[in-house]
């Protein structure tokens, strides 16, 4: 390697520029190393210890991991809850926002008003929203069950009945499809008009036009949305903490809302079992990275990039 360095010496000007370049990027490089890389490596190390922040950090090998896989019933319960949420919520929100975008892409008067109205809910977020939905989902007198009642159907007990809590949360999450809608709308408007015209001359109906022109043209955005929603889905936490049936039992009823990150949070900050929580975090990290890489690999079979594959 030494010879490789000798082979091509930098000129004075070049070296000066390189130095300046490094100085300019150093805040970000240092920031990344200190605030991301080191904590990340530390958490990997600490997941093999009984670290509890204040009193101990002894190497215990893989005990956190074996406890997690073989002795903690709540680990599997929380993983199941999170997977349930991801499996249903990601396709539904993707479908929901795409459908909404297609509808809002029509050329009718007053469309700007509709777009604003449908986008508005995604501005609201956080705990206030969850409280609002708790009211909407009240079994007896909540608006949703009252509306279901108009059709002569007795609505479910939503957040009280453990079978219905997760569907309730998934339903609530559809509230914010506006954010995804905006991205789809932008990409829909980028689909060249002449493609539609050409296919129309060839006799393609609206459904064929949608499947063979619209969908392929927006697949890059679909992939982006899919990956970010997947990652976001695995991070679900607040909903189980705030919308639990019993304030003193996060994730209730019957742990049906005990999501993976909620269990991790309780282990880390309520009983200070930080080493265990870090082991959980690394497990989730591996799951998410495997899914993301799989998505990226599979994407070459269905994602279409206009202007070549090098993007």
């Amino acid at each position: 390697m030494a010879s490789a360095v000798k082979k091509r010496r930098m000129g004075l000007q070049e070296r000066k520029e390189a130095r300046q370049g490094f100085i300019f990027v150093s805040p970000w490089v240092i920031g990344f190393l200190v605030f991301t890389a080191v904590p990340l490596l530390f958490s990997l190390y600490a997941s093999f210890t009984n670290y509890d922040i204040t009193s101990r950090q002894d190497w215990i090998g893989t005990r956190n991991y074996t406890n997690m896989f073989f002795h903690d019933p709540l680990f599997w319960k929380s993983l199941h809850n999170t997977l349930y949420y991801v499996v249903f919520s990601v396709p539904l929100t993707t479908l929901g926002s795409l459908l909404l975008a297609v509808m809002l892409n029509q050329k009718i008067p007053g469309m700007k008003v509709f777009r604003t109205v449908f986008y508005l809910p995604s501005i609201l977020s956080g705990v206030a929203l969850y409280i609002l939905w708790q009211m909407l989902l009240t079994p007896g007198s909540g608006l949703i069950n009252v509306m279901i009642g108009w059709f002569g159907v007795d609505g479910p007990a939503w957040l009280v009945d453990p079978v219905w809590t997760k569907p309730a949360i998934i339903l609530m999450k559809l509230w914010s499809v506006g954010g995804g809608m905006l991205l789809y709308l932008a990409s829909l408007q980028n689909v060249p008009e002449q493609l539609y015209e050409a296919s129309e001359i060839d006799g393609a109906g609206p459904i064929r036009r949608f499947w063979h022109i619209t969908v392929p043209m927006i697949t890059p955005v679909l992939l982006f949305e899919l990956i970010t929603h997947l990652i976001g889905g695995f991070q679900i936490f607040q909903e189980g903490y705030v919308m639990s049936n019993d304030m003193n039992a996060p994730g209730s009823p019957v742990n049906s809302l005990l999501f993976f990150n909620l269990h991790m949070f309780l282990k880390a900050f309520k009983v200070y079992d930080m080493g265990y929580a870090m082991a959980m975090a690394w497990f989730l990290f591996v799951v998410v990275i495997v899914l993301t890489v799989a998505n990226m690999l599979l994407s070459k079979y269905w994602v279409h990039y206009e202007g070549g594959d090098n993007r």
Partner: protein
Amino acid sequence: MKTNKALSVSLATLLGASVLLSACGSNNNNGGDDNAAAANDSAQPAEASTKKVTIDFWTFWGSETRRPIIEKIIDDFNKSQDRITVKHTYYPFGDIWTKELAAVAAGNPPDVIVNDINTTAQRADKNQNTNLTEYLKKDDVKGRFFPQLWDTVIYKDEAYALPFTTDTRMMFYNKDHFKEAGLDPEKFPTTWAELEEAAAKLDKKSGDKYTRIGYSPQYAGFDWGSIAMNFDKGLNFFGPDGKPVINDKAHVDAMNYVLANAKRIGQKNLDNFKASFGSKQANPFIAGQVSIWPDATTFYTQLRDYGQNVNYGVAPIPEAEEGSGHYSVGGGFVVEIPKGAKHPDEAWEFMKYLTDKSAQTYWAEKNFDSVANQEAANDPELLKNPVYQAAVDNMKVTKLFPFPVNAPDFLNLINPNRDAAILGQVPPQEALDKAQKDVENLLQQNAK
């Protein structure tokens, strides 16, 4: 050249990381000798005692009612001597202890903090608060406190905090409803069976919809867990030897009691009715929706402020059978010195003041909290209020249940099984057997 630089940067990072890691490691090694540390700290200030010191006091009392009260107490303390100045820092209830944890880990904690009474031993075990043994040798303040409160601050026979406030649960009941239902308004049911009988008479319906429910264990602050403790004569979930006794017969009986009430009224009716509960004027007891309402002493302040028209009485919690005991449950807060505080001696002086008679009486008077200092709690002015008198009497049967150090999160394993039983998914005995097994398993994991 480039590769060299990249290599050296990553090497430097690794080095930095390992230095950090080893620093963390060595910091955490002095867990065992709290005593020595405390002794060292208290040896220094003999010469420095004339130096003026400012100490930082963290509370979550920021509301317009509580803030002026605690600040008046701090002000009084600051004026009572000229060496120590206490600075009050307020953090919201949801943040304060996480912030403290980070501050202790960083070695820069406040000098005094208000913390949860039931987790004092857990923090002592984790080296988050300061051993008070040396200070107690100088000033023995143990006798000030209700004995069951003192027990909560003990970890391995040594004290780590001073109790500040507590609470106790009693039965608030609507005397007008009692009269209306043909019950004696001056005589509250003594046993749980009698209570359920009275409750049935207090229910009111319009068509098949409830407009008033006499009593449900699923409403307000005395749920199955508390009733189970009352049924088993104040033992609760762990036996005297520390072994879990969750599937004890008394606990199953308590669950059957809760279920019988739910069956009589209908779980769905209970849930729907609960959904209409509000707060303040719309509190279900104040609004007359529920006739019997178990709650902590401070519920009085809500009745005082929003329920002037409610003709209510206060009674002890019922007992399982005649003479088995009216056991109630309490909680509360302690004041303690986080581990690594800069001025533990001055912090101790302030903690003594906070738990002394004058500050405690003032706190009780203004907040209507049950205070930890027995003398203050028995202040004759305070006892003139019948609710306060009842609360102080109730302290005799009030139990506290600090979380066991080796299974602090055991409730997370009991609660889902409790829910499953109440929802009728699993028979009570089976649910509690499962809870018992889960908690035993947790203890086993933590024992390793």
